[in-house]
């Protein structure tokens, strides 16, 4: 066990792309945590997808030994945090495991929405926040201005902040010295009953769940019987140890202040949820550590295999992803339109996209996904309250006393010239203007209260394109507000296509309905009969288009008796048909669903 005085536990926080992962790599190098040749770029992000998107999905932690300029060796525990708004809770738990945070700010871009969001999280967690100005090698770097910005906007002293280039390895040791000098050593009583905070976990096929934890009080030892205070799960500890950039080292015990892992043949990550407190069964703590709550899915959608025969593969893939991701929820769902699939819950839109992409990429599945849905709260006339995450569960309009939908406070930071179009966008999405602050001459922070429903489709994409990529977005849930909600059904040839139903704010229903029927008309190929495409609320049709009957699909000539061409044509037709979904007599290509989901990107 390391002396408390020689321990420093810290996180690195930053807006996306400001250089958090690159700085982590440099710190590891400087501490000789990894041999150069083993060093892959951005070691902490070890999923391909993370590397590709440049974001960190799952937190990781590593233990570094740094010999400071005063000649003393310090143990630095670097706890990586996920960098996206969907994972705010995970970020907060990672921060709760630290005493300090290095706030990386891009010297050219300055403060962005997540810089602020993360800095506030760190300040709220009582961390010592150490600003660092990164990317000073860029021609557009303006470190002095950015330091002023940090002082003015966040209120952190920043004049002495190290100016570094993580990419080029400039001035990295200044960051390490800052950490040693300014991050407080952890406190904690190693003789008290054991309490440790779970800030992450990872499933390993051989050892079960590897639980990442920060010990707050007492000592956890191999052989201890432990209990998770929230989930109630009990296990006997098989191994405790330290985490390294590559691999782990078992040790006999972890004491208060230390960061490491334990294993106990745990089969289910749900037993060891992020934020839960581990305590000893023999000598339990009186109360758990503060701040635990279950991560609640905010966005739901149906996920179906494009090829119905691959349902079992999809189930298998979701089970595997769930092993590492307790915040992913799913349950079987049946759609008359799409067959067997799953209703999946996600922390947010990015979380949903990541899961979909991993399913497609790592498990080689073609998916059809239904429109994302937030969780609506419906009070019925008999005063029962329903939480509706699926349009199929939406009660008939006459049974609804009141509908409510979740609202968020959105913070958007962008150059002033885009303020007009951003405000238009927010207004169009039922945003309620709060306030606007000039961070400096080049950036404005705008606050809106908006329905989450309006954000989950593709608000972020639209925002990026309207502002040529300059805007950044962060949002936090502020609770439910009453809202006049209706369920919009889509009918093809007179039959409701359940997979296309969705819940919508009443005043938006007509506009959405028009667009959807037009989109479907354009994306469903003409067939041998005329197909009406209708949108209806409770049986009342509010929009209609017609797909005209196909009139010509013929091979005029079978030349010289060469019928192989015709055979090939028919085979191709058959292949195409396999990708279609059959709705009664109507065939609908998977793309038609996608087209409907992408509706908002064009307005």
């Amino acid at each position, binding site marked *: 066990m390391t002396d408390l005085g020689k321990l420093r536990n810290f996180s690195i926080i930053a807006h996306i792309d400001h250089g958090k992962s690159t700085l982590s790599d440099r710190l590891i190098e400087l501490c000789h945590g990894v041999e150069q040749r083993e060093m892959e770029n951005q070691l902490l992000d070890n999923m391909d997808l993370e590397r590709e998107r440049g974001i960190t999905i799952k937190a990781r932690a590593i233990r570094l030994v740094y010999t400071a300029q005063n000649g003393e060796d310090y143990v630095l525990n670097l706890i990586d945090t996920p960098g996206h708004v969907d994972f705010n809770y995970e970020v907060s738990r990672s921060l709760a495991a630290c005493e300090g945070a290095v706030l990386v700010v891009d010297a050219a871009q300055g403060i962005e929405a997540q810089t602020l969001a993360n800095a506030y999280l760190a300040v709220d967690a009582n961390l010592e926040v150490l600003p660092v100005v990164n990317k000073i090698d860029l021609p557009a770097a303006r470190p002095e201005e950015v330091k002023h910005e940090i002082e003015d906007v966040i209120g952190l002293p920043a004049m002495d902040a190290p100016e570094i280039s993580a990419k080029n390895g400039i001035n990295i040791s200044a960051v390490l010295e800052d950490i040693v000098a300014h991050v407080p050593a952890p406190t904690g009583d190693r003789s008290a009953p054991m309490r440790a905070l779970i800030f992450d976990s990872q499933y390993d096929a051989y050892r079960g769940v590897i639980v990442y934890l920060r010990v707050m009080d007492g000592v956890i030892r191999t052989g201890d019987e432990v209990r998770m205070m929230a989930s109630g799960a009990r296990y006997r500890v098989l191994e405790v140890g330290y985490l390294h950039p590559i691999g782990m080292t078992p040790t006999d015990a972890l004491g208060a202040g230390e960061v490491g892992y334990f294993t106990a043949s745990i089969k289910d990550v749900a037993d060891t949820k992020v934020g839960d407190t581990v305590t000893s069964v023999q000598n339990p703590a009186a109360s758990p550590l503060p701040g635990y709550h279950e991560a609640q899915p905010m966005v739901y959608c149906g996920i179906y295999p494009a090829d119905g025969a691959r349902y079992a593969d999809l189930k298998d893939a979701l089970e595997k992803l769930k092993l590492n991701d307790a915040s992913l929820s799913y349950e079987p769902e049946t759609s008359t339109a799409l067959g067997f699939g799953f209703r999946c819950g996600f922390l947010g839109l990015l979380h949903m996209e990541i899961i979909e992409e991993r399913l497609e990429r790592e498990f080689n599945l073609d998916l059809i996904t239904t429109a994302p849905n937030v969780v609506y709260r419906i009070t019925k006339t008999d005063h029962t309250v329903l939480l509706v995450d699926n349009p199929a569960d939406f009660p008939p309009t006459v049974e609804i006393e009141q509908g409510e939908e979740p609202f968020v406070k959105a913070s958007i930071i962008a150059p002033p010239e885009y303020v007009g179009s951003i405000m238009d966008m927010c207004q169009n999405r039922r945003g309620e203007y709060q306030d606007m602050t000039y961070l400096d001459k080049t950036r404005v922070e705008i606050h809106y209260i908006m329905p989450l429903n309006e954000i989950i489709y593709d608000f972020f994409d639209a925002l990026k394109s309207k502002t040529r990529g300059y805007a950044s977005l962060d949002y936090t849930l502020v609770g439910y507000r009453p809202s006049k909600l209706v369920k919009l059904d889509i009918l093809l040839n007179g039959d409701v296509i359940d997979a296309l139903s969705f819940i919508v704010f009443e005043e938006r229903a007509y506009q959405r309905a028009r667009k959807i029927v037009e989109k479907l008309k354009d994306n469903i190929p003409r067939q*041998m009969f005329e197909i009406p495409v209708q949108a209806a609320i409770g049986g009342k049709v509010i929009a209609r288009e017609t797909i005209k009957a196909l009139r010509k699909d*013929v*091979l*005029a*000539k*079978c030349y*010289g*008796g060469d*019928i192989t061409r015709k055979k090939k044509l028919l085979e191709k037709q058959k292949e195409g048909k396999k990708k279609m979904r059959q709705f009664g007599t109507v065939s609908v290509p998977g793309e038609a669903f996608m087209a409907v989901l992408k509706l908002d990107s064009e307005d």
Partner: protein
Amino acid sequence: MEQGKTLGIYVHIPFCRSKCEYCDFYSIGGSRDRDLMDRYVQALVTHIRETARGAGDYLVDTVYFGGGTPSFFGADGLKRILGELYKRFDIAPDAEITMEANPDSVSLRELRALRRAGFNRISLGVQNDADEMLKALGRPHTYGQAVSAVRVAREAGFDNLSLDLMYGLPNQTRAQWMNTLRHVVELKPEHLSCYGLKVEPGTPLAGYEDCANLPDDDAQADMYLYAVSALESYGYNQYEISNFARTGFESLHNLRYWLGGEYLGFGPAAASNFAGKRFTCAPDLPGYIDGIAHGGAILSECVQIPMRERAGEYLMLRLRTAAGIEEEEYVKTFLMAFRPLERELKQYAEQGFAEYQRGRWRLTPKGFLVSNQIIGKLLDTQHASSTLSKK
């Protein structure tokens, strides 16, 4: 000799004056290369001689010279090839012997010679009655040339003439097509083929398809339906999707393709259906000449067609014809149940796509227009239904 085994022969002539904008058939456009043509005749002669040994018990009742442009190839070459066929095969005295011709490459002298050699039917590529349309398609002739070619063919003694027309052309209106039909009927051909223009990948037309101002599918469908009814009123019976004839002048050779009959093809890209197999020569003229001369491989494809697939071909090909399909014929030949097909055909009949006449099921003109869809669905049904013999 076994009674009643008949055979068709197809000879491919892959030479043209120039390539048309829309054409993706195998042929070489450009000036006449006498040497290449001679070597090609020699290769065909050898190929015919060698192949004929395996077809001794067949009576050949149709011969078809297609292309390319056989008339452009010249009478001497065509006569030599046909002469070889007469020498090596048992050709019926009343066999239908067709050659394709373009209006710019026919002369009275040559046609007379060909008529004497045994050709008795000409299929002339007319396509349209407006010179600017012909020019846009890359056709190397005018409508005036087509009119005189018809006269010349009559004078040379051809009393079975077919004219090829195309609809759905760039900038074509329904009125323009109606005029073409009216004018062409005045030439009094015994037979007419009307093909919808299809943009084939790799053709020049495909390169500028988007700005070619092609009539849309609805307009093409209207042109087609107009042609069917107009030609009917002029006394031409529709006997296949794209083919119309006065009674008794149906193309026997083309019918053979649709009725599943046997035929042998000679020349690059020529297809055969013979002795249970379908095979095709590679579309490669030098390769063909070389392969024949030195005993190399000339086929690009050769497959044995199992009975089940023949059953599919039966639907696919017969439903192109006005005669259509028939239950007993189907059940006896393939030992498969007709009921599932019939159920579906009845639905199509309700929608006006099919009809049941004199014991046979056929597609209506409206059904022909979407025949790919209908045939595709019937093949699925056929595939799903079990054979009678398994019961």
